[in-house]
């Protein structure tokens, strides 16, 4: 039997807020969601246990495809974000000095002082047919008529990368900052090419940062709702949008809950596969 006195007691009391938050706000709703997803409506207000909504996901190609599309686009967005963010993070961590460093970091941060909705509308103002870029192209004679830049996959991708840039830059900067410059110098002294230095010195060192950045960006992108819906228009088709529709416009909580549970399971599975493939452990990624 556990004795709750003195130090012991205060430890548990201090732990309580965390446990309560996790339990009441995360674990309990998820369990309830699981319960809702496992019932089938028979008639007005009557339900029975069934796997119907899960089989629905696997048998209706529409839902499957939406999930696949969301996952593939999220992976692409994650990789592209990494590709763009890496040089930026390198510059901030290693090249820029003193004040410049802080300024650059601030420049990455400032867009996030504005809410995501406002940022997305900003993109819409820029890209729409009667928008700023279209207007500029016509004014400069580069285009003879209005150009519609919204409502396609490339726009969605741009928006997603823009929205997740910071979450990749921060962990990369913090890991790269810890790297000893002499490692790179030594590699050059021993005759390594720039490519070899990046491949066998910098990348392995930065790997924990890369992994934690990728996990955060992938999860954020997969769970994003605003950007794909607003920028994608009639072709958006995002899995979270599907969940929202089931809950709010179709009143089909059971189906929506099943999708929610599936999204959680499948995305966790994807992250796990990614970790296995890159030979990293979750522990390392979290520690960075």
């Amino acid at each position, binding site marked *: 039997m556990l004795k709750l006195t003195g130090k012991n007691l205060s430890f548990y009391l201090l732990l309580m807020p965390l446990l309560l938050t996790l339990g009441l706000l995360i674990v309990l709703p998820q369990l309830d969601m699981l319960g809702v997803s496992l019932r089938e409506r028979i*008639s*007005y*207000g009557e339900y029975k246990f069934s796997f119907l909504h899960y089989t629905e996901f696997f048998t*209706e190609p*529409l*839902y499957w*495809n*939406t999930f696949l599309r969301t996952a593939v686009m999220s992976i692409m967005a994650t990789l592209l974000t990494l590709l763009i963010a890496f040089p930026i993070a390198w510059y901030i961590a290693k090249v820029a000095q003193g004040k410049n460093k802080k300024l650059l970091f601030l420049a990455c941060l400032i867009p996030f002082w504005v809410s995501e909705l406002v940022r997305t509308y900003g993109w819409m103002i820029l890209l*729409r*047919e*009667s928008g700023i870029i279209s207007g500029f192209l016509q004014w400069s004679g580069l285009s003879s008529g209005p150009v*519609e830049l*919204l*409502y396609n996959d490339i726009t969605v991708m741009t928006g997603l990368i823009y929205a997740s840039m910071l979450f990749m830059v921060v962990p990369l900067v913090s890991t790269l900052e810890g790297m000893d410059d002499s490692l790179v110098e030594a590699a050059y002294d021993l005759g390594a090419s720039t490519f070899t230095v990046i491949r066998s010195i910098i990348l392995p060192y930065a790997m924990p940062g890369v992994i934690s950045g990728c996990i955060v960006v992938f999860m954020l992108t997969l769970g994003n709702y605003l950007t794909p819906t607003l920028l994608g*228009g*009639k*072709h958006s*088709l995002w899995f979270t949008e*599907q969940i929202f*529709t*089931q*809950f*709010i*416009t*179709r*009143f*089909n*909580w059971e189906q929506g809950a099943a999708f929610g549970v599936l999204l959680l399971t499948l995305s966790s599975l994807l992250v796990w596969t990614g970790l296995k493939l890159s030979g990293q452990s979750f522990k390392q990624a979290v520690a960075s």
Partner: protein
Amino acid sequence: MSRSAIKIRHSLLALAVSASTLSISAQAEELRLLTWGGYAPQEVIDQFEKETGIEVKVTKSNNEDMISKLRATRGAGYDLVQPSQDRITGAQKEYRIYKPIDLSKLKSDRFIASMLDATKKNTSVNGKVYGVPHIWGTSGLIANSDQQNLSFNDLCSDDYKGKVSYRLKRPTLIGFAFAMGEDPFAAYNDQKKYAEILGRVEQKLIQCKSNVKAYWSGGDALINLLRSGEVTLAMGWDAGGWKLHKETGKINFVAPKSGALGWIDTFALPAKGKNDEAAYKWINFVMQPEIAAKITDSAGNFTASVGAENYVNKALSNSYKISYNQTSLDNIKWYPPVPAGLEQLEGKTLDRIKAAQ
């Protein structure tokens, strides 16, 4: 912790408790209203507050959102809501989110009798009435042209390629079904027939998806698309069309050949509403002709209030006259109550249209 510190803490606590009880007792009576944009203009709210002392808190919403919100709380959180009349019985049977209306507390002579009777009939469950009419309007076409002879089918015509917008919701399916010569309302109680009609509409909408600029989701988004000229033909509400007509003089609402779709938004009481008295007071208040006219000016739609048309501003009644003549008025298709199960079918159809590339 020292004794004095504990003492201070206690007195602070006591202070906090007394402050919170004070704030409860000092709080004015309030009415929490869940409604559509424009249905509760500030001017009307102010006047109501002045006359009754009841504070009105407005949340803007739409049909699906209202049902979802009330379903999540089992009918709590609001004192008065305004769903469309065809969406009440289904939601009530399924989730029991409303309570019956006590008609004796309403001044029924302020309502247009035919509309009150129709709404009472359409919102009855087990002999109890759950809704009374407030605002009515239609869905049809909004066109950036002088063309008056239009049909929902024109949304798929090459003349408007890439310049079309509509909502991906049930009215669109029903509008197209009528335009294709079907009668979806007659098939409401025959699921097989209804599914067949939906199948044909689905095919048509997938075929002409390339015509669509964007699916709109809120009235303001649609007005923006039309105003900027990015969209020239859209399915939308009459009020939006008339608003644009007042602004531009050119864009206007057109009742389609197969008939505009008519809806009536009602007043309904949520099952766990806390202030029914205030709700009845609000209903009686806004059904006065002068007040109803003010709401018409703000919402752009006409109300079920007797005599309100005498107070409505001229520009709106002019736009209305261009859009409607007696024949097209008689041709309005009023939504009957939606039976259970249909929305599931429609949902899948809409999902497939959305997913088609």
